C-alpha cells in the first residue's frame, strides 16, 4: 500500500514538473515564481 501511494505521488511530481517546464517553454508562465501570465512584478510578459 505504501509503495503504491509513493509511486502515485512520484508520478504526480513528474507530471507537475513536466507541466511547469512546458508552461515556461511555451511562454505561458514567467517562471519567476508568480506563475501567472500577467507577472505582477512587471506587468504583461513580452510577446514571444
Amino acid at each position, binding site marked *: 500500500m505504501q509503495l503504491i501511494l509513493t509511486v502515485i505521488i512520484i508520478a504526480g511530481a513528474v507530471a507537475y514538473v513536466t507541466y511547469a517546464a512546458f508552461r515556461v517553454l511555451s511562454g505561458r508562465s514567467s517562471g519567476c515564481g508568480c506563475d501567472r501570465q500577467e507577472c505582477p512584478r512587471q*506587468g504583461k510578459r513580452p510577446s514571444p
Partner: protein
Amino acid sequence: MPRTLALVGNPNVGKTAVFNALTGLSQSTGNYPGVTVDRKYGQLVLNGHRATLIDLPGAYSLAARSPDEAIVVDALLDQQEGEAPIDGLLVVLDASNIERNLYMLSQLLELEKPIVVALNMMDVAKRRGINIDAGKLSERLGVPVVPLCAHKGVGMEELRAAMSRMLAGDLTPGRAACVFSASQDEAVRSLLADLEGRKDSLGREVLPLEVFRVLMDEGGYAEKRLVRALGPEFGRFLKQCRQNARNNGSSLAAQEAKVRYAWVHEVMDYAVTRPKERPRTRSDLIDSVLTHRVLGTLFFLGLMVLVFQFIYAWAGPLMNLVDGTFAHLSEAVTTVVPEGVLRSMLVDGIIAGVGGVLIFLPQIVILSLFIALLEDCGYMARAAFLMDRLLGWCGLSGQAFIPMLSSFACGIPGILATRIVPDRRDRFTTIMVAPLMSCSARLPVYTIMIAAFIPGRRVLDGTLNVQGLTLMAMYGLGIAVAVPVAWTLKKTLFRGEKPPFILEMPSYKVPQPGTVARKVWREGSAFVRRAGTLIFAVTIIVWALAYFPHAQTITDRFDKERSQARALIAEPAQLKAALAIIDGHEAGAHLENSFLGRAGHFVQPVFAPLGWDWRIATAAMASFPAREVVVATLGTLFNLGGEVDSDSPGLRETLRNATWADDPTRPLFTIPVALSIMVFFALCCQCAATLLTIRRETRQWRWPLFTFSYMTVLAYVGALITYQVSTRLGLGG
C-alpha cells in the same frame, strides 16, 4: 462594445498609482523612473460603461529610442498587432514639472483622440510655489484637467467623473496648436506618397503621424522599423526628404523642440504662475549629501552594511521558529506513519527538502522590505546616479543600474527592466550581466553556508557581525564581477561609446505602507509558492532518485550485521550505539547505490578540485534548472544518508557534522568548501526561467547559451580559486 483607454505620461509621474486606484489592481509602483516597462491591463467600470485601461511605460516624448518607449508609440499609433485601437487617453502630468510634461502632451494632442488630463502631485507643486489654474489650462487645451494627489486619493472622484464622460462619448479631441514649417509639411507629404506606393511590401498602411515621427527622429525606432522593412533605398529617400525639410536650418529634432516649447511657454504664461527662482527644496538639501561623490558613496556603503546586519539580526529567531516547526512536523509524521518507503519520502524527502527551503522565508521578507523602502522613498535613483561612475568605467551608463538593482530580487524582472536602456549594445550587455546579481533564490545557499561555517563573532567593538559582513560580500561579489565582464563585453562583442546618462531625480517621500506591504507580500508569496509547487515536486523526484533501487542485498547485509551485534553486545547502551552506527552505514550504502548516487559518483571527479564530494556535486547539478533546489537536495541527501543528528535535526547542524564517506573523521564541509560553494552559486546561471527570458528579450538562442556558458565557466574557475587559495591560507582547519 468595451472601449480601450491608454494611460500615458512621463516616467515616474504616478501613472501606475492612478491605474491601481482606477482599476482596483495592485501593480508594482516605485519612486524611480522605469518601473513599468510593458503594458499592464485593467478593467474599468464607470457609470455602467466598461473599458480596458492600459498602463503604458513612461516616455518623455513620442520620439521612441528604447524598447519601452517603442511600446508606447506603437500602442498610441494603433500599431500593436492583435490589440484593439485606443479610443481615448488618460494623460498623467507631474504638476511639479509641468513644463517638461506639457511637451509630450503637445504631441499627444496631435493624435486627435479624446483626452483627460490628470494633474498629479499638486501637493509637491504647491510646496514649490507653483500654482496651476486647472480651469484655464483646460480651457487652453480643450480637454478636461483634473488636479490630483494620487497617492493620497485626493481628486480621484473628479477624475472618475471626467473618465466617465469620456466613456460616454461626451469628449472631443483637444486642440493641437504646434505649427511646423511648410518644408516639413511638404516632406511628410512626399514620404506619405512614397509609402502609399509601398503599401503592399509593407503589408500595412502608414499614418501621417507615424510618418512625421519617421521624419523628425533621426536614428529613432520608427525609422529603423521602416528601413528594416523596406530596405536601404527607402533610407536614402528619407535622408533626401530630411535635407529638404531641414531647409538649411538646425537639426529637425531641435526645430521640433523649439516649436513645441514655444507652445508650452504660451500655455504656461496663460495658466501657470511660479516663482522666478526655483526654491531650494528639502530633496535638494538631502541630495547635496546623498549624491556627493565621497559622502554619498560612504552613505551607500553604510546603508548596505546596515541592511545585511539587520537581515541577520532579525531573521535568526524567526528562522529558528520555522526550523522548530518542521522538526515537530517530522517527529509527528514519524510517529503516525509506519516505517517504510512512504515515511522516508515524507520525512527525508518532502519535509527535509521543502522545510529546508522555507526556513529562509524570514530573510527573503526582510530583504524585500528594505528594497521596497529604498525604492519607495526615492533613494534608488540616487544610488543609480552614484553607480554611474562605476558603471561608466566599464562602458555602461547609470541607466543599467536600475535593471541590475531589480535583479537583486529576481533576474526576470531585472532583464525585462533593461528595456529602459535605449542603446541595443548597452541593453544586451546589461542583460548578460544582470544574472550575476545575487537574486533572492541565492540567499538560502549563502545563509545556510554562512550559518553553519562562518563564526558568528562580532567585530569593531561588537557593532558588526561577521556573518552579516560575509553575506554582504557575497552580494558585492556579483557587482564586482559584473563590472569587468561588462567591460570585456563592451570592448569585444558590444563595442561602442558610453551613452549619456540622464536620470530624473524624483522627490523624496515617506514610503507608502500599502505599497511597501504589497511588494513584500509579492516577494514572500512568490517564494512560498515556488517552495510549495516546483521545489515540492522536484524534492519528491530527487528523493525517489536517491532512494531507489534500494537493493535488498544491501538490506540483508546490514540485517546480518545487526544480528551479529545483538549476539555479541550485551550492554544496552553499547548495543544502541552500535546499531545506530550500522543504521547510518546502511543508509549511506543505499544512497551510494541509488540512481542519484551513481550519477553523483560519475560527475564528482569534475568537482573534486573544488573540494566537493559526490553529494555536493549532485546537489549542484540538480539545481541547474532552479538554484533553490540545492538546499532541498542537500536536505534530502543528508537525511537519506543517515547523517541527521536526532538531537539537532536542522540542516545547518547536519551539514556542520557531515563527514567524508571514506573517512568519517574528516569533516566534509570546511570553510574553504563553504566559500567555494557560495562563490559557485553566486556566479553560476542556475535558472532556466532567466535563460528563457533572455531568449525572449534578445529573440536569439545564442545569447542565453552564451550567458549560461560564460557564467558556468566563471563559477567553476571562481570556486576553484576560492577553494585552493583559502585552503593554502589554512582556513580549512
